C-alpha cells in the first residue's frame, strides 16, 4: 500500500537526525458519523468522521540507534513498536533501531482512539524531521493496527475508511466548531476491544439511510454549522444503538433536549458519549454547566472540550 521509493532520496539526510525525536497525537472523542457507503463503483465501504479531542494526548519519544531493533516501553504497546518498524522500513532505514517510550493519558477501550493515538505519535517520532503526509501516516497506522481512526488528519472533516486507511471523501474544511460535554456511559464496565468487536452488519435500509447523513455532513462543513453537525451525530448515534447500545441512551437524549444541546455523539466502538453545543452561542457555558450537573446526578464523570482547527 505504501511505496518507499518516493522518499529514498531524502533518507541520506536523515542519517544525521538528532538522537531524540518526539511525536504527539491527540485523542478523539468517538465519531460524528460512522456507517457504510456505496462508492461510485457501487462497492460498499465502511467509514467514519472522527471528533478530535485535545484534552488527552499520547506522546512518543524515540531514541534511534544503529541496532536495527526497536524496543518499546511499556512492552505491551506492540502496535506502536510495529508502527515505528513500518515507518523506518518505509523511510528506507532498515539499519535503524531504537528505544520507543509511549506516555499516554488516553484511557484504552473507551473508544477514544488510544491505540491510533499511540501509533500516530510513534510514527511522527520515528520520522523525525521528515514530515509525512497524513495519508501516508494513515496507511502506516492501518498496517500497524488493522483499523485506525482519522486522528492524523487533525480537525479536517474527512470520511475515513478506517479498515483501509484511506479517505473516502474530504468534506473540504474543518469540522464545525463544537463545545463538547463528554462522559463515559459505562464507567464500571470494561470498555470495548475495538478489534475483537464484530463490525456491524447493516441492513439495506440503514445503508441507504447513511446517505442523507453524509449529505447533511457536507452542508454542515460548508456552512461550519454546529447545529447541522449535531443532527448528523444524533442520527448516527441512534443507528448505532442497534449494534453497540450505550446504556441509558434514552436518558441521554432527553438530557440533551432538556439542556438545549445540538445533538448527541458517541464512540461507535467504545463507551463514551458527548453532548454537543455551539461555542458561539452565549448561552452555551450555562447550558453546558447544567448538563454537567445533571450528568453528575446520574453518576457520570464529565469533562469538557472544544473542537477547533488544530
Amino acid at each position, binding site marked *: 500500500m505504501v511505496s518507499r521509493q518516493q522518499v529514498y532520496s531524502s533518507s541520506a539526510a536523515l542519517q544525521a537526525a538528532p538522537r531524540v525525536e518526539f511525536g504527539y497525537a491527540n485523542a478523539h472523542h468517538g465519531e460524528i458519523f460512522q456507517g457504510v457507503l456505496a462508492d*461510485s463503483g457501487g462497492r460498499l465501504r465502511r467509514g467514519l468522521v472522527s471528533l478530535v479531542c485535545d484534552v488527552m494526548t499520547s506522546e512518543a519519544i524515540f531514541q534511534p540507534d544503529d541496532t536495527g531493533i526497536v524496543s518499546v516501553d511499556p512492552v505491551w504497546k506492540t502496535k506502536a513498536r510495529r508502527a515505528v518498524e513500518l515507518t523506518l522500513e518505509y523511510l528506507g532505514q532498515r539499519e535503524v533501531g531504537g528505544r520507543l517510550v509511549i506516555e499516554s493519558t488516553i484511557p484504552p477501550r473507551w473508544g477514544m482512539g488510544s491505540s491510533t493515538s499511540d501509533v500516530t505519535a510513534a510514527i511522527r517520532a520515528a520520522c523525525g524531521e521528515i514530515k509525512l503526509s497524513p495519508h501516508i501516516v494513515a496507511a502506516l497506522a492501518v498496517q500497524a493496527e488493522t483499523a485506525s481512526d482519522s486522528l492524523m488528519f487533525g480537525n479536517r472533516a474527512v470520511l475515513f475508511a478506517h479498515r483501509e486507511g484511506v479517505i473516502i*471523501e*474530504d468534506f*473540504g474544511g474543518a469540522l464545525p466548531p463544537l463545545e463538547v460535554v463528554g462522559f463515559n456511559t459505562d464507567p464500571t464496565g470494561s470498555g470495548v476491544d475495538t478489534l475483537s468487536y464484530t463490525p456491524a*452488519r*447493516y*441492513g*439495506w*435500509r*440503514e445503508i*441507504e*439511510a447513511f*446517505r*442523507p*447523513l*453524509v*449529505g*447533511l455532513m*457536507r*452542508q*454542515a462543513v460548508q*456552512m461550519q*454549522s454546529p*447545529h*447541522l453537525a449535531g*443532527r*448528523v451525530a*444524533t*442520527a448516527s448515534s*441512534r443507528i448505532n444503538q*442497534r449494534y453497540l447500545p450505550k446504556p441509558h441512551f434514552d436518558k441521554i437524549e432527553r438530557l440533551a433536549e432538556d439542556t438545549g444541546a445540538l445533538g448527541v455523539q458517541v464512540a461507535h466502538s467504545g463507551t463514551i458519549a458527548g453532548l454537543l453545543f455551539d461555542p458561539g452561542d452565549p448561552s452555551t457555558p450555562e447550558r453546558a454547566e447544567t448538563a454537567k450537573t445533571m450528568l453528575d446526578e446520574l453518576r457520570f464523570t464529565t469533562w469538557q472540550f472544544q473542537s477547533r482547527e488544530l
Partner: protein
Amino acid sequence: MKNREVDQTITDALALPRLVRLSENLFAASFVLMKLLPARFILDRARDAALIGRGSTIIETTSGTFGLALAMISALRGYNLILVSDPAIDDALKRRLEDLGCRVEIVREPAPVGGYQRARLNRMAELQAEFPDHFWPSQYDNPHNPGAYAPLAELLLEAIGHIDVLVGTVGSGGSMCGTGEYLRTVHPDLKLFGVDTPGSVLFGQPDRKRMLRGLGNSLMPQNLDHSVFDEVHWVAAAEAFRATRLLHQRHALFQGGTSGAAYMVGDWCARRNPDEKVVLILPDEGYRYQDTIYDDEWLHSQDLWLPDPPREPHLVDHPHEAGDRWTRLQWERRSYEQVIGGSFIPAQQSSSFLAGSPSAGD
C-alpha cells in the same frame, strides 16, 4: 470535493432532480422522470438478489411514468418488459415504450369494482401465470419503492441543509413516505404535506373518476404510511392545470400536472410560513401534456379552464367534507383509522419502512 463525472447511463444521469429556488423560502426539486429512482432501486435490488438477469421477464401494471422508467432500464439491461395498461395511456407514451422494446398490453373494460386498476391487476395475474419466472416490481407494496429515495434526501440535505416542510403528490406513497422518513432521520420535526386529488381513496375519499392523473389511487397501496403526514391537500384537476401553467409562466418550469398540484400547495405553504424552508417535489416534465394542460382550447373543451387559481384551500375536519375543489385537512400524523373513524378499514398499513428489521436483507 467531487469532480464532475460522466454518467454510465441516461437513467443514472436523469435520476436526480434539479434544485431551483422559486422564492426566498421555496425550493423546487424538479425531476425529468422521478420514477427512475424507484425503478432503478427495485431492479438493482432484484439483480443483487439474483432474481433477475439479462433476458428475464418483468411484468408490471402501470399507465404512467413508472412504466417508462422500467422500460428505459430494461432496454439498457436486456430485460423483457411487459406492461399492462388501460385506454388512458396516451399514444405517444405507448409508442415510446414499444420503441424501447416493451410489450404493452391494454385492458379494454374496467372491472365493476376497482375500475381499470382492478382490471389491470386481473390481466397481470393471467400474465404471471403465463410467465412463472417473471419478476414483479410491484411499486405499490415493494418496500424498495420508498427505500429508493435516499439519494434525493441526500441531495436536499447537502444543498439546503435544514428543511422545515416537504410538499409532494401521493400515488403509491413511495416518494413522500420514503423521502420524508430519510429526511426525518436528521430533522424529526420536518412536516410532510401530501397532495391528493378528489375521488382518490388514499386519504379517505370515496373512489370515483379523476381527471388529474399521476397522483391519487383507486386502491390503497401498502407503501402509503398515513401516519407520516402532517397535512393532506386535495387539488382538483382544473386547479392543478392552472397551477401547472403558472409554474411555467412565472418560473419557466415546464412540468406536468402533478407538479402543478404540488406547486399550488407548496407556494401557499411558503407564503404562509415565511420563516420556514419549504421543498417541493415536481415529478415529471411537461412534454406529455402539451396537447392537454398546455392547450387552452383543450382546457375549454373539457370544461377545465380556470381563469384564476384559488388563493386559499378550504379547511375540513373529515375527508368526506371535501368537495371538488382545493381542500386541506390537518392530518397530524394520525393513522387512517384515527382520521376516518367509520367502518371502512383498508388493508393493514405498513409501519415506517425504516423501522424494519435492521439486518433483514429484504
